[in-house]
């Protein structure tokens, strides 16, 4: 099973409108996409989630994003230094209802990201496909 990411409790970014926001996104900063491809399933307040966890609001499921990896081989060629496409990606999912549900439980929530590998190139390691720099939650009031 591929290694998952579990954040510490992070602020839900609730503004003056409280839980009455119109949209909420979960942002993922610095998502590496140099290796294998995978689906990243995102859960709120469910650090025990794994690839068998039902993808329902009741289990904190907030949505998923897909990483289409470069499939770069450990010892193989990489894109020339500084070429934009190889830089880690910024990804987000729109997760309004899941964040609203978490907001009813408190002002902070943990974010768990469970990678499920969907594609690989020869030589790719599959045990830890997910690497990211950070996660945040943004709510919008209009």
């Amino acid at each position, binding site marked *: 099973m591929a290694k998952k990411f579990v954040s510490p409790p992070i602020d839900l970014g609730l503004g003056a409108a409280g839980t009455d926001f119109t949209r909420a996104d979960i942002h993922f900063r610095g998502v590496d*996409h140099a290796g294998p*491809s995978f689906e990243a399933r995102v859960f709120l307040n469910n650090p025990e989630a794994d690839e068998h966890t039902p993808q329902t609001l009741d289990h904190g499921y907030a949505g998923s994003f*897909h990483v*289409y990896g470069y499939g770069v081989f450990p010892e193989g*060629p990489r894109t020339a230094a500084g070429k934009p496409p190889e830089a880690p990606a910024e990804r987000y999912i729109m997760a309004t209802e899941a964040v609203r549900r978490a907001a009813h439980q408190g002002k902070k929530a943990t974010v768990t990201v469970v990678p499920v*590998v969907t594609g*690989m190139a020869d030589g790719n390691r599959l045990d830890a496909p997910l690497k990211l720099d950070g996660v945040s939650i943004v709510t919008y009031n209009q």
Partner: protein
Amino acid sequence: MAADKGGSAVATSLLLRKNVSNLSGPELAALRDAYAKMMKITDNRGYNYWSGIHGVPQWFCWHHGRIGNGSNAQPVDLFLPWHRAYLILLEHTMRDQNAGAAIPWWDWTSLESHTIGVPKAFADKSAGGKPNPLRQAHIKVPPQFNRTTRRFPGSPSDLPAPGEVQALLALSSFSDFTSQVQDIHDRIHGWTGGMGVVGGKQVGGDMGTISTAAFDPIFYSHHCMIDRIWYLWQLQHGQNNIPSTYLGMTLTPFPLKVQDVLNIHSLGYEYASASAEVTVHA
């Protein structure tokens, strides 16, 4: 080929791209003939060369791109314009081999795809008594690759539903749209490539990673579907609805800038207006 400065030039006759499932016998034969001929060419008119622009060995494609690092990082998302340029120039090269060929789109939301998965045109082992060039190609990129492409597609029921494309088309901002359409695009790559076992060893299908995806002939029809979705989005939300800072950016290695690829009519093609399916019972 590029649009005039004002972006209003329209080619006198537009090439019509169609749903692969709606191609006539002669249209499908022309497509196969063009691919087969390209696959025999070893110079820069050949299939191996063009496929190698995307991943190995040239690595030019754009996916979820950004410029800079750390707090200076800025998303620069040329995914849609770069792949539009790639497809039109490949199509020109293909039509040099057979003028009757045009890249068709694979509608992975269709009832047919949700029933059989990969369309028959791409899945059949042979066509006209010869190996089907839409099923697989040879990757020759020394020293890593000298083999035919492979696919291990997932369950048809896991393909996106039509409503997911409708939801994309309802997004009004370019940044939301390009992010979400890429996500569906990424998902289809994983679905089509998949994972399998060859010689007792776990391997990935070629569509599954950027490195070899463009060597699988279905790649171009998957991207034709993505390009068509962008075109449909442009019809609803504006042809020039893209950050103005992108307009002058060059779509390396192609001699085109973002502003040159916003109008598909200026590029000389059009999409058939419907992807209606007709089921014929024998």
